[in-house]
């Protein structure tokens, strides 16, 4: 059987990949994708814990389902905002969306 730790390590790596994407990318949409990676890592965690440590109530599974749902919704919402920004500024580059500062 696969040990729980394997899943945790995998999710940590996936999370870190996502974080790296958030920190290094300039395109709003790519940042959004990276966030999706982080959320996927979270879902893996929840499911892993549910399967291994909460086999009777498996709330984690439900949680993961909701995480997936919310993540999807978030993509939709964020895309709307990106589109709006693009319409106003002709760019989806987050570095150029920096008129608000200091």
């Amino acid at each position, binding site marked *: 059987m696969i040990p729980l730790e394997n899943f945790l390590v995998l999710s940590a790596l996936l999370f870190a990949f996502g974080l790296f994407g958030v920190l290094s990318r300039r395109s709003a*949409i790519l940042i959004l994708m990276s966030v999706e990676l982080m959320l996927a890592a979270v879902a893996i965690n929840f499911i892993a814990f549910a399967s291994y440590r909460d086999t009777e109530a498996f709330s984690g599974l439900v949680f993961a389902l909701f995480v997936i749902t919310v993540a999807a919704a978030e993509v939709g919402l964020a895309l709307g905002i990106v589109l709006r920004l693009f319409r106003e500024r002709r760019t989806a580059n987050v570095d150029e969306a920096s008129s608000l500062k200091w």
Partner: protein
Amino acid sequence: MFDRLPLPSQFDRTIIAGGTVLLLGATPVLVVLAALLVVDRITAPEFVFFLASAVLLASAAGVVLMKNIVHAALCLVVTLLGVAAIYLLLLTEFLALVQVLVYGGGVVILLLFGLMMTNAQDDPVVTDGSQKPFAFGVAALIAGVFIAMALDAQWGSPEAAIIPLPDFGARLFRDFSLPVVIVAVLLDIAFTGAFVNARRADAASAARGEARS
């Protein structure tokens, strides 16, 4: 709008090239894993796990590293499918299904649309921010810390259990009925959000103004 969509040929090229790369990259991993499996160092589920993990992580790396936006998006598809595979390994077919449907079918398409609609150039190449090296450092450290902390734990060696779908359904729609309602509202909100932003504000106002007058 359609002028900004990538050409089908480009798609083809991408898929073919990507598949080739994937195959070339996966083959050695596959070979090593197969060898390990053969010598009984790993079990069959582990074989699948490692294979899926390798694909998943490689494509995740693609998502965050690819210069070409479309390539990155396609890598995301692979990643999410890999995640679905992991779900399967965790014995939750239902969630794997949801993952494939929601992500593979919905989110990625949405993202692709978004990409195309927001990319003014024909050449969808993106540049990364100047803090990339630091980002790499931080991400690496975070991964290290997370892994260290996760492994620090005394999890014991629990066995994964199969959760029957009916039980899951009961749990979801009976015990967690309220969250289901809430999440419905949430989706509604998200829809509203997408709607109000994607629609032209002036158009909306104009419509309202006409309605009022």
